[in-house]
């Protein structure tokens, strides 16, 4: 895929009627994704808001070619990601809730390895690693320290740096700020905004943080029990669910759309992670 092809694509990402079920127990199935359709424009940031178990992570996994959908079409820059995964993998990267690093290796060693998986040689990656790490405020003298010595916030920032090293045109962020202290959370959010402004990447961001979704995203979708029940700009959602002169908050929109608060939904949620864990344990 060339730059012209990427720039000529109608959407960075298009999902059409994605279905995914996981086996649950001996006979049952859990609907992780139920006819999900959405588009992500080039340079756009779309947030997917939903409680634990709503299917957010499964959605990200389907796009990132880690889970095969039962039905539906996933197109990344116009290329079918299910039929031709290798062609799209080079142009996307993912940062998930847990920074996935070899914890005993240093940030430099992890970044060099991550870059090589995408065909980026040492000659190309080493100068960029320094530039990128200094750009995120990382003390370069610590580049040889094992990852496990770094704070979780810094590990997440390095996970974003690793993604940047491969120049992704589509970034998949799966709850990148969950579990971070407020300051680290703010730092990571600022970094995402800078990436968006500076790198022309399209971003699909899954979160259960309403404020984060409102601050970072052009459009926000609400996912509940595997169904995308609404998707619009934050203002559009508020108009859609507002009554009269009352403009609801995004949290109120969520409650009106789902019939429950985010906290209640998290308790009631049929966690897709639990479903996959059960499958693994089998």
């Amino acid at each position, binding site marked *: *895929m*060339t*730059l012209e092809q*990427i720039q000529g694509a109608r959407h960075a990402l298009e999902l059409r009627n994605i279905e995914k079920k*996981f*086996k649950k127990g001996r006979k049952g199935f859990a609907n992780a994704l139920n006819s999900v359709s959405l588009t992500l424009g080039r340079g756009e940031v779309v947030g997917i808001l939903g409680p634990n178990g709503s299917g957010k*992570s*499964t959605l990200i*996994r389907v796009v*990132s*070619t*880690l*889970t*095969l959908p039962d039905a539906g079409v996933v197109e990344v820059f116009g290329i079918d990601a299910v039929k031709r995964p*290798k062609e799209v*993998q*080079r*142009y996307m990267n*993912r940062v*998930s809730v*847990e920074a*996935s*690093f*070899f*914890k*005993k*290796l240093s940030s430099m*060693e992890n970044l*060099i*390895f991550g*870059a*090589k*998986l*995408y*065909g980026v*040689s040492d000659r*190309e990656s080493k100068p*960029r690693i320094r*530039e*990128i790490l*200094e*750009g*995120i405020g990382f003390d370069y003298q610590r580049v040889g320290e*094992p990852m496990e010595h770094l704070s979780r916030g810094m590990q997440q920032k390095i996970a974003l740096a690793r993604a*940047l090293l*491969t*120049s992704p*045109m589509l970034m998949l962020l799966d709850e990148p700020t969950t579990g971070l202290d407020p300051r680290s959370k703010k730092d990571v959010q600022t970094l995402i905004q*800078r*990436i968006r402004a*500076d*790198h*022309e990447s399209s971003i699909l961001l899954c979160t259960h943080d309403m404020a984060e979704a409102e601050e970072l995203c052009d459009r926000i979708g609400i996912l509940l029990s595997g169904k995308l029940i609404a998707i619009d700009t934050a203002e559009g959602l508020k108009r859609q669910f507002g009554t009269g002169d009352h403009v609801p908050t995004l949290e109120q929109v969520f409650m009106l759309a789902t019939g429950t608060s985010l906290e209640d939904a998290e308790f009631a949620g049929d966690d897709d*992670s639990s*479903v*996959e*864990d059960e*499958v*693994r*344990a089998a």
Partner: protein
Amino acid sequence: MCPPEGSARTGKEVNHARIERAAHQTGWMRELIAIWGYAQRNYYLTKRYFMWEVVWLVYSTMNALTIGFIGVGLGGSPENTARTTTFLLIGTMVWSYLSMIFDLLSETVSWERWEGTIEYTFMSPASRTTQLVGMGIYAIVYGMARVIVMLVAISFFFDLSLASANYLGAAGILAICSISLVGFGMVAAVMPLLSPEKGQQVTSIVTAVLLLISGIYYSVDVLPGWMQPLASISPVYYALNGIRNTLLEGASFDSQWNNIWPLLIMGLIFPPLGLWLFQRGEHFAKRTGRLKRAG
């Protein structure tokens, strides 16, 4: 990231340049870089766990010495003692090397699970063939280095019966067997993909069975009759036969054809079979959600 002050290129320009380079990069060059990446990553891990490596090396060397002293303890003429000791130590060293290759390959998936990197690795554009080849190359180099250190240590303790040894012939047989074992390890590597919780245990059972049936410390003739045919499916059995003949008897490489051709056939069958099974296992894991979530 955002360019530092005075930098000529914006992040967008760097991105575009990289995409253009990636579009024109040949597939094999990308895979070669990734193969080097896997081998280098394993080297980094060995370096980080250096003290553990030393512990295992000392343990393995002591184990080899213990087995060597069993040979000495059996008594008999000095020639017989030297021959028995050499027979046992060849088994010990060859097993140490080949089981290392098998273990490293069969733990390909488990390593990634332990570290929580499996999803990051599996969504990268580097192919599974590349991953397994990178692991295989490192396993062979690492296994060789380890055995050389052990051999040097052991040589101080025993009189070995190697006066007429054909070292080149033995090395040739070991090289052919390495390819079979890499393939055998690839076949075993699929187990943790099929069953994340129990797969790795299955590969340990395979290792234990290979140890039992391959004639590492004894001739397979001493096994019960029903068990002896099992040796014929183990590449380690043929490698040990050939290596013992070349080192103890000074037999030529050519004369070991009856041990070499099964290894060649296994070397031709196991790697492609392992890759095919691994790809099927990956597809199954992606369909059923069995790849570990972390990453």
